[in-house]
């Protein structure tokens, strides 16, 4: 296991943000923490990053106990919803930050930054400042910055939440491809079910500080553990006391495929190979 979260509880005053949460995340996987706002998913991510200390329970990363460690010592890379770009630095200096403070040789930094900028398709933008980039470009810069120090774990906190719908879809597909190129264990926090289902290998559905169900996207759709998961993941209608999936085959043209796939491939752009903006 790459990340093991053991019975973590976190309170803010009287408010219980995380209630006895346990979760195991496999090495090299891309796991989504999916839930409505206030479900505790971001807090859980911040506990893994070391930006919040749990009141109870612990976290280990790659078999090492990480509970008491500062964020600097965890070998994590983090991407924030609002980019957290260093506005006074050029794109090059932003990406180089982790290497610069580690006092790596200049030639090595230059080479690594070049590689990373290529990876996130920002080669021509090294001398620009974050304010001269679009939202999607800023977020890709933030991703390159987080990857610079070769983290063991990549944590993405609503990375596409501040972007418009079209760019969000492009970046999703791009992130999926990136993960295949750079298979670092990745945890993605999102409130967007479509995003979780399309990008992640595994999804943990969270609600009110607890994990409702963990599984492959398809399993969550086909075998929701409870009403919450059923209503939150994919379309569902209430019929008397029960929730049911609408029968998609009726409205879909062409031969009936697995309904879970139809539901979200209708809005996905995984086929697009163009560079995201």
């Amino acid at each position, binding site marked *: 296991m790459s990340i093991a979260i053991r019975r973590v509880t976190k309170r803010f005053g009287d408010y219980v943000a995380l209630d006895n949460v346990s979760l195991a995340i496999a090495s090299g996987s891309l796991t989504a923490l999916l839930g409505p706002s206030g479900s505790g998913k971001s807090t859980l991510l911040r506990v893994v990053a070391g930006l919040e200390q749990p009141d109870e329970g612990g976290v280990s990363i790659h078999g090492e106990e990480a509970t008491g460690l500062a964020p600097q010592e965890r070998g994590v890379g983090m991407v924030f919803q609002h980019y957290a770009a260093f*506005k*006074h630095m050029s794109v090059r200096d932003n990406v180089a930050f982790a290497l610069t403070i580690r006092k790596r040789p200049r030639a090595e930094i230059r080479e690594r930054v070049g590689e990373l900028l290529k990876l996130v398709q920002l080669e021509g933008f090294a001398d620009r400042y974050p*304010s001269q980039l679009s939202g999607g470009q800023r977020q890709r810069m933030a991703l390159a910055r987080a990857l610079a120090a070769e983290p063991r774990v990549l944590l993405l906190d609503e990375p596409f939440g501040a972007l418009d719908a079209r760019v969000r879809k492009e970046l999703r597909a791009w992130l999926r491809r990136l993960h295949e190129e750079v298979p670092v264990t990745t945890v993605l926090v999102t409130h967007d079910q479509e995003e979780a289902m399309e990008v992640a290998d595994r999804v943990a559905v969270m609600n009110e500080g607890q994990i409702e169900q963990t599984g492959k996207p398809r399993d969550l759709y086909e075998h929701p553990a409870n009403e919450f998961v059923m209503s939150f993941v994919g379309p569902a209608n209430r019929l008397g006391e029960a929730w049911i999936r609408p029968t998609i085959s009726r409205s879909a043209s062409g031969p009936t495929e697995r309904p879970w796939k139809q539901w979200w491939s209708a809005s996905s752009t995984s086929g697009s190979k163009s560079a995201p903006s």
Partner: protein
Amino acid sequence: MRARLGLRVAALGYLALLLVLPLGMVFWRTFQHGLGPVWDAATAPNSLHALWLTVLIALIAVPANTVFGVVCALVIVRGRFGGKTLLNALVDLPFALSPVVVGLSLYLVYARTGWLGSWLIDHGIAVIFALPGMILATIFVSLPFVVREVVPVLREIGTEQEQAAWTLGASPLTAFRRVTLPAIRWGITYGVVLTTARAIGEFGAVSVVSGNIAGRTETLTLHVQERFQSFDLTGAYTASVELAVLALLTLLVMTVIRKEGPRVDSDSPGDEALR
């Protein structure tokens, strides 16, 4: 069109009557009889000492208030404790209090008869009628500027950039130095300029605690008054011009720094507010 012209005339006329005309008069009167008397007045020992003292006090008070101001702003914005509102209000006290009252309160504490003063004087440290008291008074009256300029900028930038720096391996100190400090530098610059101007121009508080001993505890502002009261108008005007030049230099330095300053990070709201 006519209304706009009227507004412009009113604004410029207001400035002319209150600022340009009196200041121009001082310059004109100073150099009325040529450079000779001005040079003599400026190089008189008491005058030179007053200039030196003013600069010295500013050199101590401004860095002190800059460091304190940044720390205080950090505490106000990021701290989580009960007395925060009180601290926030206390910082503004020097704005609200008349400088003379500041001077008097320092006198009450640090003079020979004050409850800390007697102990200090027994140990050979004179505060009142000496340099330490004048520095204290100047620090007191110029305390809020850096805090007030930095607090809104700190609020605006939030803590995300710093946290990002932590996850990238930067120690809290490195993160502060490389990420937070550059982000708040315009707030600090503006605060420093205001602090400097206030420190150089302070009269009331320093007047009470200094004792106005010519050649010893007389700053430029006190020197202006002393010369004026001795009917040495040239001396008073000369010292006034020196003060004005110091103020202009401060403004010039800021203008230069600003020109070099915000390169392209134009969407940073902190910078926007200061432009």
